[in-house]
């Protein structure tokens, strides 16, 4: 990983530079992946790297794109939607058709090859995603449309999709927003994440709190065969387990017939029917539930508040690999907890009172 550490044009997710402190360099999404890796040694995100805002700026500067953009926007009446749309089209075309200068292309290729080596996969498939620097702001529309391209397989395609992600910073809506709110162009930059696509045997979502009652001692794990989209979008009723975190006991389980799963295709993903004999089989084993519970606990502890976590399990001949794809605060019960905390604590009832309540 020497070369990556030496430059700030690309940064591996497990690098100490890929953290929240460097959102300006790697963007929010990449930083959060790096941050996830910080939660613990067991917490693995699918391997990948960030193409940084330094890369982006060097690209724009060396190819004179920044000048073009500034001039093109300057000549537009920002209240004229049609004019802005035309400018957006022009700018995105310019970015997408420009070439990376050699030193950046070399840097990107070297990181790509390193990722191939790291995953041991020559036919490596990656997802290419934009990761804007200010996406945490309340109105994210200024940051473009946040493109994601799945199943990208060769270096040329990676380079092209990277440019497309960068270009996505210039949607008409984003340009209008930024101009009207007086953002300088260098206040909102874009980084791109290049990340291995998980070949998930099973995946799903877990809440580190029981979503139905806010009990924080439980983790609710939902799981289906294949990729997680079918679970997230709700088109399938997933397997569902409630695990008591301190003792790892499954206190509630529901394994329904699962008819549909998401699988990768060349174009992205699609939903296919699950084979008859796998439908009523739990898509995770008891041991895997324990491991997922451990991950949930580690991640929750790291962020110090209940989380909503996307995860996936890859199964290879040499064993299973657990991946954490994303973790976000679980909002519903966090708000509730904040309210409860702000209310004044009542006096603790006596043992006798408590017994009387129960008798």
């Amino acid at each position: 990983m020497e070369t990556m550490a030496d430059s700030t044009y690309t940064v591996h997710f497990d690098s100490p530079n890929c953290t929240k402190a460097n959102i300006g360099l790697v963007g929010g999404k990449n930083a959060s992946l790096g941050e996830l890796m910080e939660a613990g040694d067991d917490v693995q995100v699918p391997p990948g790297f960030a193409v940084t805002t330094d890369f982006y700026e060097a690209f724009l500067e060396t190819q004179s794109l920044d000048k073009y953009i500034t001039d093109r926007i300057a000549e537009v009446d920002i209240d004229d939607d049609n004019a802005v749309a035309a400018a957006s089209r022009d700018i995105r075309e310019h970015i997408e058709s420009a070439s990376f200068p050699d030193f950046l292309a070399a840097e990107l290729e070297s990181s790509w090859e390193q990722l191939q080596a790291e995953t041991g996969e020559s036919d490596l498939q990656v997802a290419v995603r934009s990761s804007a620097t200010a996406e945490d702001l309340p109105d994210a529309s200024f940051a473009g449309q946040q493109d994601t391209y799945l199943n990208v397989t060769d270096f040329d395609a990676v380079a092209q999709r990277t440019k497309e992600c960068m270009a996505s910073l210039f949607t008409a809506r984003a340009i209008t927003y930024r101009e009207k709110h007086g953002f300088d162009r260098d206040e909102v930059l874009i980084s791109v994440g290049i990340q291995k696509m998980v070949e998930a045997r099973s995946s799903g979502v877990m809440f580190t709190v029981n979503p139905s009652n806010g009990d924080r001692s439980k983790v609710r794990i939902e799981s289906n065969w294949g990729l997680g989209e079918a679970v997230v979008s709700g088109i399938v009723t997933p397997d569902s387990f409630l695990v008591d975190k301190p003792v790892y006991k499954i206190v509630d389980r529901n394994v329904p017939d699962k008819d549909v799963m998401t699988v990768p295709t060349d174009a992205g993903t699609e939903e296919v029917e699950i084979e008859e004999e796998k439908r009523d089989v739990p898509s995770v084993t008891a041991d895997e539930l324990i491991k997922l519970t451990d991950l949930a606990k580690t991640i929750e502890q790291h962020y110090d508040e209940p989380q909503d976590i996307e995860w996936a399990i890859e199964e290879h001949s040499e064993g299973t690999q657990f991946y954490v794809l994303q973790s976000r605060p679980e909002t519903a019960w966090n708000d509730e907890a904040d309210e409860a905390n702000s209310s004044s604590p009542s006096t603790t009832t006596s043992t006798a009172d408590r017994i009387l309540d129960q008798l």
Partner: protein
Amino acid sequence: MESEQSGSELSESATSSTGEPRERFPFAGELDLPAELDGWEEMYPEYFQFELSEDRTDYERGRFWFWDKKDTTEPLMPWDMTISAQAWQIAMAQNPSRVFAIPPSMSVDIRVVAGYAYFTGISVEDEELLKERAEIFKERSEYYYENYDALYNGTWLPAVKEIGREIDSLEVPAELPEYVPDDVITEGKGQSQSTLQVIRNYNRLTELALEGWQRHFEFLYLAYLAYMQFTEISRDLFPDISDDAIGKMVSAVEADVFRPDQELNDLAVLADELGDDVTSVLTSGESPDVKRSRLEDSEAGREFLEEFDAVKDPWFYMTYGDGFHSYKGSWIEDMEAPFDHLESKIERLQSGEELGRDFEALQSERDAIVDEYRQYLDAEERQEFDHAYETCMSVYEYAENHQFWIENWLHTIIFRKMREFGELLVNHGLLADSEEIFLFTRFEVAELLEEVCETWALGKGAFVPTRWKDRAADRKETFEAAKAWDPSPALGEPPEEVTDPLMQMLWGITTEKVNNWLDIESDDGDSSHLEGFGSSSGQVQGPARVVNDSSDIDKLEDGEVLVAPLTNPAWAPVFPRAKGAVTDDGGITSHAAIVCREYGLPAVTGTGHATSLIETGDLIRLDGETGEVEILEKAE
């Protein structure tokens, strides 16, 4: 066991609220007792009998009675009954009714059938009375909870030890003197101090025994209630939490009932350190007496014996069985058990095994689990949880401690003193064997001793009746028949729902269990599947070893699953051999459950009838979390 004898015919009673005829258990008067049990009634006081008179029969038939299998797995001898059950009838009943006024649970009424006790819980329905009792309960229980340490360590334990000490010091002559001593004359002591002393000391013994039993119940319900409020608050704060997880949070309790086993571990380690002189004797398979005398021969052996004798009182005052049965004996009188345990402990040590439960590991595992649960609470909830937990942990040890001090230590002393009175009766020709004294009630023994005094007073060569000996011989037979008889699990009409919290906690009597009994009685039950309380986690399978009589515990072999009416703390030293345990009785807070948790033995308790369904050698599987037991393969 002849299980066909009684209780098997079900009756259809009056109709339930839904208009459907409901199944019920037989009434006491409908029981079909074997002929050998004829006349059992005269062995127990009249007030324990069912269906004495019309008004009483009406009262009794209007209630649901369950067999107290926890305490009378085997029938109680008449004398034992008039101490234990007598104490239950008064000391146990008065604790919720008159002492702490536990609002919904007034008391427990007791009857006896052929030496087996039947209980019925009396609850309080009246709103006004409930309110009145709640006020009293709040004030009194709070005082006890707040001052537990001072009340237990400062008052209770010294008082109990004093009771034992005084009983021990009561003088019982082996024989009354030929002529009264001279000082009766020279000091003008009156004329028959000898007989007065016998009568006085027997009266004092029974008084002290009853006082000990008053102490037995002093904290008992409060301890269970403290546990209950912790369970409830845990369920409240952590919905769906398992019994097993709650059990883990209250495990690793340093209770006195585990001390005998710990002392044996320490002695085994000492023997190992002292070397071959000691270990070769202790593992020689000889009788305890031979081992002792051989140990006297060496320096190291004497050092070992010195340590052994230093801990034997109180820690080897451990009864064989549950403590209620005088005929079972105690370690201190029959050293077979402690020496056997030492033998296997030394062998385990020498093969490199660690002895005993790793207490610190258990404690730190427990604390880590408790800490983690606490972490998931907000400040206010945590405060509530901590208070409930601390109360539970400080008071709950009592549920285990009292069992050592009363059922084991004190009973050993009481029964030993009674045998001295038995000797006196034998020496004066009224009984053939000192053990026969237990075949008579506490009131009859007073008559017996009175009669000893009479025959003595009548002078040398006075007529000595044989009727006590004859009666003892008859009763011995009846008692054997009682042991062979299989009582009905319950009598009368079951409630549609068992709601009494104390019934559920202490005896594990739940609605499902009662229905289960009814199914078994009517042969509707599935005979390869049992359900009970998941009391100690772990899933194991292995051949079953059914131990109905505690003296058979030695037969337990490595890797077997122990199946017993109840587990017994005196068995702790053999637990390392067992793979798991299944019991007929005992809820999640029972001794059976606690002992298994403490020793990390996967266990399902309170299955109702494991010992009648499972036979030694059956391959069984148990799940200590779900409470399920499966008979996989019947023995040949």
